[in-house]
């Protein structure tokens, strides 16, 4: 039974005219929803559980896979600066003044090292960046058939270190970063800020206006395999052969609302779809949340060092893994995913399920695999004129040039198939590479 007030309201609202649904909006929204339909749900899960379990029995493979997860440590090291352009300059300016940012990354990655061929790994990352406190925290969750793997990565600019904690396993990794590298990262910070500048430095396409989650947004797109290291390993050209990035900015607030990236390897074995969203700007972040709390019973699995200016030498050290574990068969390119997959596959063959425990030194070297693509791109960016011929040269060709980069003025460091090195002039390099090409052709 209705009381008087209810009867009054019912009578009052009777026959009031309201806007009817608009079929144009209904159709437009349908398109947007279908475009954004979560692709990872299209893949049936569970069919590779058996294979995955077998693979995960191997301790060394598990760690090879873990090494790639440490990529998170690099991911947040990059962001914005001022730029030219009308709307985008304003956006960059606004980002310059941001003190804190949080956002979510969702990714579907096919061909992660250590996973069965064709398997798609779903990953989410909650990222917190504080420019005031000079720190970044990334909480990652990788959904694998065998369970969800959770890690927390902290990048501590004051301590010149990146720490990745795996609470479920009571383990952690530590990457010490040289002062020079840390200063560079400090300048670039680490998230959608440098990204915008990097995108504007490349040839970009205006995508126009679109409604995203009910908000009017403007977008640009960059498809360039040379996308710089500032964009983070996952979405930079260092990771994949083909990379496309879209950036959408909230038209009203002139701040990023969504970033999406796709990447793939030429052979189609590795690919990635990634979305950055749920951005929140200038929210309060308690300092304690940006410092790792590592209990005494946690084991330091490995620690390594990332030094700027020694990229060439570090790459050689990574290639040495292929002499030790892959019979001298080098990866065909120095894209991170290609190298990581090749070494994971080699290690899987080399070590049986019950083989001995890998040394901390080996794990530390595996961690560097995450950085190989970035290192190579850094050489390119710094004008070191690098070249790599792993698709043609193996350890069985000790006279052939496998890798080279410029170390000073007119001098190049040449790495041969057997990993011996020699510093030569540019003229001598031409002779060596010509000879090397002739030998390679005669071997084909």
């Amino acid at each position: 039974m209705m009381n008087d007030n209810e009867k009054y309201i019912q009578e009052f609202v009777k026959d009031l005219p309201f806007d009817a649904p608009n079929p144009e909006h209904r159709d437009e929204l349908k398109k947007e929803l279908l475009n954004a339909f979560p692709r990872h749900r299209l893949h049936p899960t569970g069919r590779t559980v058996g294979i995955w379990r077998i693979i995960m029995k191997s301790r060394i493979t598990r760690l090879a896979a873990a090494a790639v997860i440490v990529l998170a440590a690099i991911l947040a090291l990059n962001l914005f600066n001022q730029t030219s352009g009308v709307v985008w300059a304003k956006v960059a300016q606004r980002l310059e003044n941001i003190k804190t940012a949080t956002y979510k990354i969702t990714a579907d990655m096919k061909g992660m090292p250590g996973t069965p061929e064709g398997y798609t790994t779903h990953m989410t990352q909650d990222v917190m960046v504080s420019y005031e406190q000079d720190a970044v925290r990334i909480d990652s969750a990788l959904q694998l058939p065998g369970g969800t793997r959770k890690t927390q990565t902290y990048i501590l600019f004051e301590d010149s270190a990146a720490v990745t904690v795996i609470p479920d396993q009571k383990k952690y990794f530590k990457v010490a970063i040289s002062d020079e590298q840390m200063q560079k990262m400090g300048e670039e910070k680490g998230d959608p800020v440098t990204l915008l500048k990097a995108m504007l430095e490349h040839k970009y396409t205006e995508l126009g206006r679109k409604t995203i989650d009910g908000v009017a947004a403007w977008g640009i797109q960059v498809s360039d395999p040379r996308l710089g290291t500032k964009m983070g390993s996952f979405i930079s050209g260092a990771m994949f052969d083909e990379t496309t990035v879209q950036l959408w900015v909230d038209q009203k607030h002139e701040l990023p609302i969504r970033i999406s990236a796709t990447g793939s390897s030429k052979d189609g074995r590795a690919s990635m779809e990634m979305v950055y969203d749920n951005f929140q700007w200038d929210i309060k972040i308690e300092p304690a949340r940006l410092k790792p709390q590592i209990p005494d019973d946690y084991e330091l699995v490995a620690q390594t060092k990332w030094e700027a200016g020694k990229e060439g030498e570090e790459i050689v050290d990574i290639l040495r893994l292929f002499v030790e574990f892959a019979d001298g068969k080098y990866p065909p390119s120095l894209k991170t995913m290609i190298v990581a997959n090749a070494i994971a596959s080699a290690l899987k063959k080399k070590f049986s399920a019950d083989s001995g425990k890998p040394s901390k030194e080996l794990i530390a070297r595996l961690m560097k695999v995450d950085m190989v693509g970035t290192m190579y791109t850094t050489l390119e960016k710094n004008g070191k004129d690098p070249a790599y011929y792993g698709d043609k040269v193996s350890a069985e060709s000790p006279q052939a040039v496998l890798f080279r980069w410029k170390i000073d003025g007119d001098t190049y460091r040449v790495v041969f198939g057997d990993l011996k090195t020699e510093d030569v002039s540019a003229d001598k390099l031409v002779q060596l590479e010509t000879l090397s090409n002739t030998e390679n052709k005669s071997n084909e």
Partner: protein
Amino acid sequence: MRISEDDDTDLVRNACRDPDAFAQLYLMHYDDVFRYCVHRLFDGHAAEDVTSTVFFKVMHHLSSFDGGATDFRSWLLRIATNAVNDYLRDAQRRTQLIEKAVITTRAESVFVIDSDDKLLERKALLKEALLSLKPKYQTVITLRFFENMKLTEIAACLGKKPSTVRSWLSRATARLRKKINAATDSRGSK
């Protein structure tokens, strides 16, 4: 053709993985969600924006929904309620919405010849009065008088006890009536 509740339940389940099923589910419920939003916000553009937000939320969280077709509607309206309340939480936006509501309704009164001026005037009064109530009271009024839902259905939708909803509805209708009367007197005296 009317499809059975079992078919509806299957459709909800399939919509998690199948974009076509999701599209079908979306088309079945778009009008309901839009109407609810426009009854709460009194502005077609704002209602479209919030409707978009609602369906993106539905798409991202559908895999966590484990009820049947009847529960789905309640779940959908709960998401819509939260989205509208979030939209209105911004006090400035709420003020703008009320101002815009009054202005556009007066404009409608002037330019829409075929419309009943009294109805539009009544609508303007309702907008002003309803939007000044607390969001929970706006919600129960809309669900009860525009969606014609029973107390038990509103309770299911909001995840509250029917007695709580009864109490909210009683206070909401009393306050709304008072505000409408005050606004009517105020306009009459101008």
